[in-house]
């Protein structure tokens, strides 16, 4: 029997199938809990895999991983708290939608986007893993620095009305990102002697604080009073929350583009789903004719963000399988689990353990399908949780966030990071400063500094490689084009507005 059939057969075993079902369900739940990210879940599952047969072990870890990314969007939409960092960009439009009584719709769009993105990336993985992997390798410090610099420009798009405030927010994010150790020399920067801060402010608590806690504080200022429910009628609810053909048409292109972006970023080891989803969100907004609803509940925002982060999942397996180099923290854990199983990851895995490879492909596919089914069934009940009076819901969520922040590294300092971020998020919201730019700069700054300095070390201080690099030049061209387009549109808009004004005044 050839390896593929063997791998497929493995799934018919009740133990394996049950493990898949369970891990997808658990992954959804964990992803949905703010503060508990997929990484923790996968990490904790590893000891269980030591004594399991290989295919069951793989199914367990992959099931958790794939569905966890979708699960993150649940709390992002319902609670303004990304359950996993990858769902951060889903908040921008998902939460406003929930506040307008469209939570079910948002969740459904998110599911559709996630489903598409995941399937897209698995197909990509199966078809072109080795070729893409070699391409990914060629991305060195210069290229990565350019890509990240490009991502900085997304800030402009995310800034909304006031560019100055957006840039201020971004600058603060950059300053916060400098806390930690110097990436090249290891010297502590602004850690005040605390070893716990040597790796920088922990990301998940910062995220949870900035969004979830800030929102809860905002609710607290209103005494957790229940807003007058305009959308209590079940009938109206159902109708408004249905996905129409128009919606599907609207999200079609953004989803495809977002998946492409997500997979492209996913292939490059180390960049991650968060940056992918931000880029996809920025791209969706930039490409939209009518940008007015972005940030207020545009389905395209949710769809783009979720497609991208799920598209990363399959793509991170490309360097993992083709080269034996993990694409992100979770695949690193997965590789470790494989090693414990006696499977040596590396370019030859396709030859030495083809069955393992096929099991991984199939696990990704089946996990995605199961996630769609389970997720779909869970959406309505989940949206119902919003009906819980805020006075009970919010403090409970706050408590979960506190526990979740601590659990990130078993360190109380993370709870304080979350607290500080919560205060800051609250203040920013009240002063009209957008929070998204802060977050994105925070994520990008360290890898950017690292890549930039690696490149400069290699070139001994000269910036010359940047000007001759094809990737850099391409990205620069795209940015220039985007700016030109935006500027031209702006001019057109003003020209159109002027005749109206003249009519008013004349």
């Amino acid at each position, binding site marked *: 029997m050839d390896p593929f059939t063997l791998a497929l057969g493995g799934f018919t075993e009740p133990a394996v199938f049950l493990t898949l079902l369970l891990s997808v369900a658990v992954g959804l739940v964990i992803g949905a809990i703010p503060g508990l990210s997929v990484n923790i879940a996968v990490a904790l599952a590893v000891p269980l895999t030591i004594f399991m047969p290989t295919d069951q072990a793989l199914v367990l870890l992959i099931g958790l991983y794939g569905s966890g990314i979708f699960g993150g969007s649940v709390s992002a939409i319902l609670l303004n708290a990304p359950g996993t960092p990858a769902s951060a960009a889903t908040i921008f439009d998902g939460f406003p939608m929930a506040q307008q009584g469209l939570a079910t719709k948002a969740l459904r769009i998110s599911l559709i986007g996630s489903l598409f993105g995941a399937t897209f990336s698995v197909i990509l993985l199966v078809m072109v893993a080795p070729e893409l992997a070699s391409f990914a390798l060629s991305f060195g410090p210069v290229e990565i620095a350019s890509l990240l610099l490009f991502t900085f420009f997304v800030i402009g798009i995310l800034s909304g009305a006031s560019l100055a405030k957006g840039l201020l927010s971004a600058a603060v994010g950059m*300053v916060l990102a400098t806390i930690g150790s110097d990436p090249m020399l290891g010297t502590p920067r602004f850690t005040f002697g605390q070893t716990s801060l040597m790796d920088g402010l922990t990301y998940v608590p910062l995220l949870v604080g900035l969004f979830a806690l800030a929102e809860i504080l905002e609710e607290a200022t209103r005494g957790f009073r229940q807003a007058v429910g305009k959308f209590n009628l079940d009938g109206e609810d159902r109708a408004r929350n249905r996905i129409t053909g128009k919606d599907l048409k609207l999200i079609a292109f953004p989803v495809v583009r977002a998946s492409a972006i997500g997979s492209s970023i996913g292939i490059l080891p180390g960049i991650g789903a968060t940056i992918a989803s931000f880029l996809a969100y920025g791209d969706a907004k930039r490409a939209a004719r009518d940008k007015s609803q972005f940030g207020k509940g545009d389905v395209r925002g949710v769809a783009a963000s979720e497609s991208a982060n799920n598209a990363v999942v399959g793509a991170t397996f490309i360097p993992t399988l083709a080269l034996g180099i993990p694409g992100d923290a979770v695949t690193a854990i997965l590789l470790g689990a494989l090693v414990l199983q006696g499977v040596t990851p590396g370019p030859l895995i396709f030859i030495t353990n083809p069955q393992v490879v096929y099991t991984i492909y199939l696990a990704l596919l089946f996990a995605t399908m199961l996630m769609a089914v389970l997720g779909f069934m869970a959406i309505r009940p989940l949206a119902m949780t919003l009906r819980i009076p805020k006075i009970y819901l919010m403090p409970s969520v706050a408590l979960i966030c506190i526990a979740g922040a*601590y659990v990130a590294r078993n360190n109380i300092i993370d709870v304080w990071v979350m*607290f500080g971020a919560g205060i800051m998020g609250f203040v920013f919201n009240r002063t009209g400063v957008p929070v998204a730019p802060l977050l994105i700069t925070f994520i990008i700054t360290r890898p950017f500094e690292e890549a930039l300095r690696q490149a*400069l070390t290699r070139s001994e201080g000269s910036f010359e490689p940047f000007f001759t690099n094809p990737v850099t030049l391409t990205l620069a061209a795209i940015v220039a084009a985007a700016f030109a387009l935006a500027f031209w549109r702006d001019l057109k808009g003003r020209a159109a507005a002027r005749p109206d004004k003249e009519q008013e005044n004349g």
Partner: protein
Amino acid sequence: MAADRVLALVLLAGAAVYLGILVPEVGRAQTALGTGDFYTVGPTALPTFAGAMVAIFSIAVLAQGRRTVPAASFGEGLFGGAVFALLVAVTAILMPRIGFLPAATGFLVAVFLVYRATRWWIALILVLALPILIDQVLRKVFLIPLPQAPFF
């Protein structure tokens, strides 16, 4: 003064402290250590840039005037928010000292009292069940121990 300008001022002041005191501190520490390679862009380059950006954009926001007016005025309901923040802080302080369970329970009780939860039976269930649920799930399923008090 509008809230956003206050914020800009605070951030400007922060940037001044950052650039004036903290960053040179790093520079001094670096030369003292002296190990490792030292190429053109050192550990103080990015922080200097970042601090400068904060300063520049705080000034920009200050100069801009009231271009964007946020929905709620800054001070609205601030007391309620501050109290909640205080409760969270106290819980965070107590957690390592008396353990998660007591701290969490205390937190919930305090919140429900202060914000006047009407249905006391829901509140009671949550107070009793939620901390234990969180603690047990994390401890048994995930094997992550939350802080424990000596007698818990």
